C-alpha cells in the first residue's frame, strides 16, 4: 500500500494523507492530475477495483469534494482519493470521466450527476434518469436544496392531518384567559 501512496505523493503531488486504519488511507490530489493518478493506481499499483465514487458538498468552503475509493485485492488495501472541485452556485462542476478505466464508473457518474449535479463529459448515459424519474428540481444532495420547500410544492398533505403548537395547546388547556390578551386588545388593538 505504501508504494501506491508514495507514488501518489511523488509523481502526482498528492497531499493531506490521512491514515484511517491499516489498509485504509485517504489522500487528496489536484483535479487535473486525478485521472492520471487513478490510472497509475489501477495499472501499476494493483488498485484494480473501483469500489465507489461519492461526493461531499462543503458549501461553506465553496468546495465540491469527489472521493474515489479504490481497492487493491492483492494487498487487501484501499485508498480514498479525494479531489476538490470549485463549487458552483447553480451546480455543473465538471470532472473528467473514468469510464474508460472501469465501465461501471459510468453508473457512479450518472448518479453523481443526478444527485449532486456534477458533470462528467463523454460519460455514457450521463443524463439518463438514475433513480429520480421525472425530476425537474435542483439536484437534491446539494446542501442548498430546500427539501421542505420542495416537499410543500410537490406533495399534497395527507387528509386528516392536524398538528398543535405546544405553547398554544398549553395555553388553551391551562390558562385560556391570559390577561395580556385582554389588555392588549383594550389599549393597543393593533398589536
Amino acid at each position, binding site marked *: 500500500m505504501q508504494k501506491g501512496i508514495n507514488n501518489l505523493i511523488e509523481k502526482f503531488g498528492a497531499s493531506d494523507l490521512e491514515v484511517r486504519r491499516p489498509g485504509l488511507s485517504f489522500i487528496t490530489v489536484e483535479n487535473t492530475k486525478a485521472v492520471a493518478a487513478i490510472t497509475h493506481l489501477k495499472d501499476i499499483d494493483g488498485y484494480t477495483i473501483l469500489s465507489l465514487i461519492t461526493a461531499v458538498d462543503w458549501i461553506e468552503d465553496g468546495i465540491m469534494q469527489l472521493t474515489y475509493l479504490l481497492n487493491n485485492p492483492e494487498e487487501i488495501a484501499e485508498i480514498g482519493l479525494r479531489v476538490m472541485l470549485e463549487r458552483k452556485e447553480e451546480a455543473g462542476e465538471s470532472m473528467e470521466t473514468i469510464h474508460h478505466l472501469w465501465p461501471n464508473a459510468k453508473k457512479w457518474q450518472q448518479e453523481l450527476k443526478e444527485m449532486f449535479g456534477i458533470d462528467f463529459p463523454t460519460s455514457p448515459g450521463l443524463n439518463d434518469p438514475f433513480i429520480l424519474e421525472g425530476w425537474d428540481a435542483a439536484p437534491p444532495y446539494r446542501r442548498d436544496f430546500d*427539501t*421542505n420547500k420542495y*416537499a*410543500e410544492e410537490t*406533495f399534497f*398533505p*395527507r387528509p386528516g*392531518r*392536524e*398538528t*398543535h*403548537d*405546544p*405553547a*398554544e*395547546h*398549553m*395555553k388553551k*388547556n*391551562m*390558562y385560556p*384567559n*391570559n*390577561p*395580556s390578551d*385582554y*389588555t*392588549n386588545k*383594550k*389599549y*393597543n388593538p393593533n*398589536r
Partner: protein
Amino acid sequence: MDLKKLLTPFTAWGNITKDPVTIKDPFNERPGADRYRGFHKNDIDQCIGCGTCEVICENEAIDLVPVSDSKDGDSGLRPMIDYGRCCWCALCVDICTTNSLSLSNEYTWVSTDPEDFRFVPGVDKKDWDNNEKGWKKPDNYEFYSLKRVHMDELSPEERSDSFIEMMKGYSKEQAQQEADRCVQCGICTATCPAHMGIPEYIKAIRNDDLEEGLRILYDTNPLPEICGRICTHKCETVCSMGHKGDPISIRWLKRYIADQNPSEKYKEILEVENLQPKGKKVAIIGSGPSGLSAAHYLALMGYEVKIFEKLEAAGGMMRYGIPEYRLPYDQIDKDIDYILSLGVEIQYNVTIGKDITLDQLGKDYDAVFSGTGLHLGRSTGIPGSDNKHVYASPDLLRWIVEGKEFEVPESVVVIGGGNVAMDITRSMARLQMVKYGKVQVIATALETEENLPADLEEVVEGREEACIINAGWAPVEIEIKDGVPTGLHVVKCNSLFDSEGRFNPQTDPNVKEFWPGTMIIESIGQGMDLSYISEEFKTKLEFGPRGRVQTDEYFQTGVEWFFMGGDIIEGPDVIHGIANGHKAAVGIDIMLNPEKN
C-alpha cells in the same frame, strides 16, 4: 460459432454446490444493521411534547397530537409520524431535547391499510418498541450548546464588603449566544405565572430587535428590570434544554432586554403616548409588585390610578426585602418611574386603616386593589425567642435599606433556609466584613442540604462569602446570658414530613450542636398584616385556609369593588404578584364596564 460463447452460460452450473451469496427472502428474516434507521420509537414518559422534532423535519412528516393532559413542563402532545413522508434521516432523533426519540432497526412492516403508516410511536404499540438496536443520537455531537453562557460577576473578595450589584449582565454577544440555544418550544410560557412571551422575546434578542423585545416584556410584565434580576424563574425549571444540559438563562436574557433600552425611550417604544382617559378612578393599597402591576395595566386602559404607600419609597418587598447587591435601587426606580410616567400617582407615608379607612377609599374610588404583602416576621416560639436581641428578618432587611443604625455583632445566627434567610445572612456578612474585616454568620435550616428551599445559587454564593449554612438542624433553645443571647442550641433533624405529607419534623435529641451568636435572626416565613381591614368589613369577606381572603379568578373579593392580590393571596414571589395585579386590572375593567364585556 465461438465455442467459448456457447459454453459460458453453463459455467454457472459450477456454483450449484456452493452456498448462495443471496438471501432466501421472504422466507428468512433480514435484520437491519445495528444502527439502521428504521421505524421510530418514543419513550413517552421522557418526551415532553416540545415539538422540536416537528420543526426540524424537512419533509413535514411529523404532527404533534394530544395524548394526555397538559401540565407544567409537558405539553401533553406527542409526535405522530407520517411514513408516507418520512425519509428516515433521523434529524428528529438528533435534535430531540430529551433523548426520548430514537429509531429502531426494523424497516419491514406490511399492512394493507395506508393509514396504518401514520402513528404515534410509544403510544400506538408496535413490535419494535423494545428493539434495542437502531439509531440513537451519538454522544459526540449536539445541535446546540448544552452549557449556558456564563454571566460575569464580582468575585467573592470584591463583593464581600459591598452592596454593589454582583451580577454584571450579558454583553450583546453573550446574550445572542445564549438566545441561540433556545429551541422556541414555549413549554416555559405555561409555567411562568405571568405567562410571559418567553420564546418571542428570546427571538427578538436573536434578531437584535430589543425594542420589540421590550414590547413583548411589557405585554405581561411591567417590572422587567426587577424580574430580570430576582425572579424565581420557574420557567427555567421546565425549560426543555434543561433535560440534557443547562436550561436557558431566561431571567438574564430578560434583564438584557430591559438593560439595553434607555428609560427615556420607553414611552415611544411601548406606544403609550396617547392613552385615552376613562374618567374612572382606582385606588391601590401598597406599591409592591402586584400593586404596581395593577396600576400599570389600569393606567394603560385609561384609569386614573392612585397608590397609597405606607413607607417613604415605592417597591414594597422588592425594595425593602431584597438586598441591593441582588437588586440595585436605580433599577427598581427605572421600572417604577416608567409606571408613574403613565400618570399613576403615589401618596407615601399613608397607612390605610389609620389615616384613611378602607370604606372611605371604597367611597372615593370606583374600585380598590390591595396588595399589602407579607411583612410580619414569624417566630419559632422556642425558649429565648422573645429576647430583644432576637430579630425578624423583614425588620432587619428594611432597616438596612432605610439606613437605620443598629448594632452589628461579631457573631450572628440565622434560623431559616429560604431565600429571605439567605438575603439576611449575606447582608449581615457584608456588614460584619465592613465593621470587623471578618464574617461569622451561621444560617441553620431544618431541611437537608438537597432540600434547602433557597435557590442553589444563593447557598453557593453565601458560602463563597464565608457564611456558614448548616442544613438539617432544628432550633431548640436560644441561650440567654445577662439578657443577651450567647447562641442557639440545635438538634439533628432527620425528616420534615410524616408519611401523610404533613409537616412533622422528626429530630434526634442525642445529636446536638450549639451555634454561638449574640444576635439571633428568625427567618422562617412571613405573615400578613390585615389590621387595615376593620372587623366589620371582614365579615363581608370569605376567609380560607391560613387566613387568606378568598377571591375569584380576577382576584375580586366578596365586596364587589374590593380586589386583593400578591403575596397575601398567592405566591409568595414577585412574578405571582405581577400576574395577580394584571389579572385584577382586567377584573376591575370588566366589573366597571359590564356593558362592554
